[in-house]
């Protein structure tokens, strides 16, 4: 038998000409939190929908705890809980009515379903709002209810599709805490996100996907290491100093700096905090005046740049990104 919660090989989903998911392999171990990270339109939701039996798999295969998704969808549905990107709850019912309905669909009797609903409302801090129509719920409350609904049958695997997209920072933090609680109780979680920090906060392992393909996989540390821990960004007082500044920084750090000439901005990845000091001293010695200095954490865009050689939002360009991506993947595999 297998201890893999999710085992997908060569998943493909086509929408007409577009290959929304183009041969994705995933292996999620029981008990882990696995993050699928990518920009809008990368194929994250489509991948999740195929695994959750919402979309037909066009090619490849997927198993959930060893059960084939294509051949035995009904069994798979007994193993998963799905929290959708657009809350999959009924707007025209109250929170409590939603939970009771889903619990009864799961086979609970009326009284038992009521207790389940009350417990979940309590656990997710929604008791006071339990009898309000969902139309009057805030985005954060709706997501919490949606998550609560996914937990009714205590499924061993939970899918979370962009659990915090569109939430304000405070609600986002609450959602993260809720997810961490689930992890402590031993749930296996597969979540998608467009935020590196979210994957960083929650996921044990991360797959980066772009244009329907997996371009990298690893822990968040490994991913960030591929772009440097953080970035030093300086804005020059005089844009004419750009060449000299780039040369000075490259010489002292032994790495090229990237430039944004129109903003007179120079960025360089930092391996150690000391690198920042070295770079600034080098600029001062060359007599280059600096208007602004910032140390930035790597963004998803930079991870993408490093992994694919093209910005995350770029149009498909497989001819150039393909080889670069697989090269990077090899590098990461070796580094692990």
């Amino acid at each position: 038998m297998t201890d893999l919660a999710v085992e997908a090989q060569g998943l493909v989903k086509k929408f007409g000409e577009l290959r929304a998911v183009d041969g994705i392999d995933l292996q999620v171990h029981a008990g882990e939190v696995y993050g699928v990270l990518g920009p809008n339109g990368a194929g994250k939701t489509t991948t999740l929908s195929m695994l959750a039996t919402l979309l037909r798999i066009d090619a490849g295969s997927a198993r959930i705890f060893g059960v084939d998704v294509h051949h035995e969808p009904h069994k798979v549905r007994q193993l998963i809980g799905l929290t959708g990107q657009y809350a999959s709850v009924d707007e025209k019912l109250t929170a409590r009515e939603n939970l009771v309905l889903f619990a009864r669909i799961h086979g609970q009797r009326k009284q038992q379903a009521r207790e389940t609903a009350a417990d979940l409302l309590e656990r997710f801090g929604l008791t006071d709002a339990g009898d309000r129509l969902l139309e009057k719920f805030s985005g954060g409350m709706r997501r919490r209810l949606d998550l609560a609904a996914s937990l009714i049958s205590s499924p061993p695997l939970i899918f979370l599709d962009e659990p915090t997209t569109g939430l304000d920072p405070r609600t986002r933090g609450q959602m993260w805490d809720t997810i961490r609680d689930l992890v402590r109780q031993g749930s296996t979680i597969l979540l998608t996100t467009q935020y590196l920090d979210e994957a960083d906060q929650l996921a044990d392992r991360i797959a980066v996907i772009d244009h329907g393909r997996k371009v990298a996989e690893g822990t968040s540390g490994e991913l960030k290491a591929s772009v440097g821990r953080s970035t030093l960004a300086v804005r020059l007082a005089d844009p004419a100093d750009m060449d000299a500044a780039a040369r000075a920084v490259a010489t002292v750090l032994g790495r090229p700096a990237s430039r944004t000439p129109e903003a007179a901005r120079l960025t360089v990845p930092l391996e150690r905090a000391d690198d920042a000091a070295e770079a600034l001293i080098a600029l001062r010695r060359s007599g280059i005046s600096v208007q602004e200095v910032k140390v930035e954490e790597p963004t998803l865009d930079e991870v993408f740049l490093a992994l694919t050689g093209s910005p995350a939002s770029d149009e498909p360009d497989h001819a150039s990104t393909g080889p670069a991506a697989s090269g990077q993947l090899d590098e990461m595999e070796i580094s692990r």
Partner: protein
Amino acid sequence: MTTLTAALPELRARVSPRETLRQILLMTGRALQKMRRNPEQFFDVTLQPLLFTPMFGYIFGGAVAGGVSKYLPLLIPGILVQTALTSCMATGVTLREDMEKGVFDRFKSLPMSRVAPLAGPAVADTVRYAIATTLTILVGLAMGYRPGGGVVGVVAAGLLVVVTAWSLSWVFTFLGTMMKSAQGLQGISMMVLFPLTFLSNAYVPASTLPDWLQAFVKVNPVSHVVSALRSLANHGTVNSEVGWALLACAIVVAVFVPLAVRGYRRQL
């Protein structure tokens, strides 16, 4: 085998018929609950009988039958069928709108019967058909309709209308699973419904029509249902038309329920 996989719940291969029935009732309950909260869903079935019955009666009565009260025995069964058809079209449109909402993602991901989310609204909507039918008959009575079939005949006719509407709603449920938008479905449905109701004996005796049109009117299932209703309500007799109408309903259900479920699965 590891302990983790051993701890997995025992998995059922399919939904039992009993579970299916239970889930259909649950989904019916959900649809009724939503209907109560959104009284707009009753506008069409309330206004249409109140508006159409007098309108058709007073406009065509004199020309077609030489008087409103003579026209009513011909007209009321026709209006009943027309109202039933338009209100079961609304069943499909409402379902289509509902399916665009996120909650259907959850229904699809739950280990539940595939027919239940479709059958629930269909069953719940029989309430709407019953309202439309009752109002049409009441308006007819107020205008001077005196059905010869008595209470039993009229109630039997009313039941036949509701059964017909429920059966035909599966056609629109099927279209709802195939069409991309509620507007598109509404457009197509109107194009199907208008010829079906007007090219029938619902408003005029078929004998007044040109031969080629009579040929179509005779095979039009709407004509058979209208004839069956006239026989039940006006004469209190069960004739072969009633049998044909019920058979047609059974065939529609037997064909379109599986098609609708297949359409729903295929959206996956």
